[in-house]
């Protein structure tokens, strides 16, 4: 009952969004970066995945778009917003589909999301810049996949302390 309260749900959404933005910022000030354009570790993806698993798909899509927009503004990467949006939308939609088909655990979903994020960015770049960017697909895809595994790990650990941020009490949310 308490879980379904809209106020609580909004507050929780906002809290998670703030967490994702902080993670984006932390990632931006890290002294090292993935040496492939468009590919990031994607700490914020941890939170996105968490929202996807503990809230609804529409929430996750909204979350992804808001996070892309806000981190673009906050981190002063205005030029990157379109790329980031394309990547996020493709990633969230793909992850939602994969999660629906119930064959894959959060690992598969996380990695697929990361790869799709890279593919989405390439789509944007091929539209805005040149179609030749597709030659970078192997590099972008494989390094994204690796990042997908890395960001899945904290989520796995988080799963053990489910009580800290208890999920919204849906029926199928956290059973499997």
């Amino acid at each position: 009952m308490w879980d379904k309260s809209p106020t609580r749900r909004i507050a929780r959404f906002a809290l998670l969004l703030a967490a994702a933005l902080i993670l984006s910022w932390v990632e931006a000030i890290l002294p090292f970066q993935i040496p492939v354009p468009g590919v990031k570790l994607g700490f914020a993806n941890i939170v996105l995945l968490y929202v996807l698993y503990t809230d609804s798909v529409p929430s996750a899509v909204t979350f992804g778009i808001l996070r892309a927009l806000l981190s673009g503004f906050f981190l002063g990467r205005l030029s990157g917003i379109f790329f980031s949006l394309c990547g996020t939308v493709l990633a969230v939609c793909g992850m939602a589909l994969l999660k629906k088909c119930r064959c894959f655990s959060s690992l598969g979903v996380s990695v697929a999301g990361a790869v799709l994020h890279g593919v989405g960015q390439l789509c944007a770049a091929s539209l805005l810049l040149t179609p030749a960017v597709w030659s970078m697909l192997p590099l972008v895809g494989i390094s994204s996949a690796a990042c997908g595994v890395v960001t899945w790990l904290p989520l796995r650990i988080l799963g053990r302390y489910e009580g800290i941020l208890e999920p919204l009490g849906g029926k199928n949310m956290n059973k499997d």
Partner: protein
Amino acid sequence: MNQKVRIWDFLLIAALVAACACAWLIPRETGASATVSVDGEIVAVLPLSQEGEFLLPMGGRVVVRDGKVSLCDAVCEDKLCENMGEISEEGQTILCLPLRVSVVISGEVDAYVG
């Protein structure tokens, strides 16, 4: 969320990686020229056969040396484009997302018209 990792996860990952890696199997020829574009508009075409460099309008240089192309002194915040090193094969690309600069290697053409 603490579901068990299944074989399908690994198959999915393998399939994704394999799909991306397939692009590496396409045979690549040595390139003939480098096309420099800003915001999708071509600003320069540099032949790989001769040493040369092109000053980007927003700062930074595209340098051709020994038939290889690299981006130097980029003015973007992440400098990833510089880290991409030198490219020389057909289809290879240097990309700078913040500056919207792309450098693409084109191959030799089979014939000229006219």
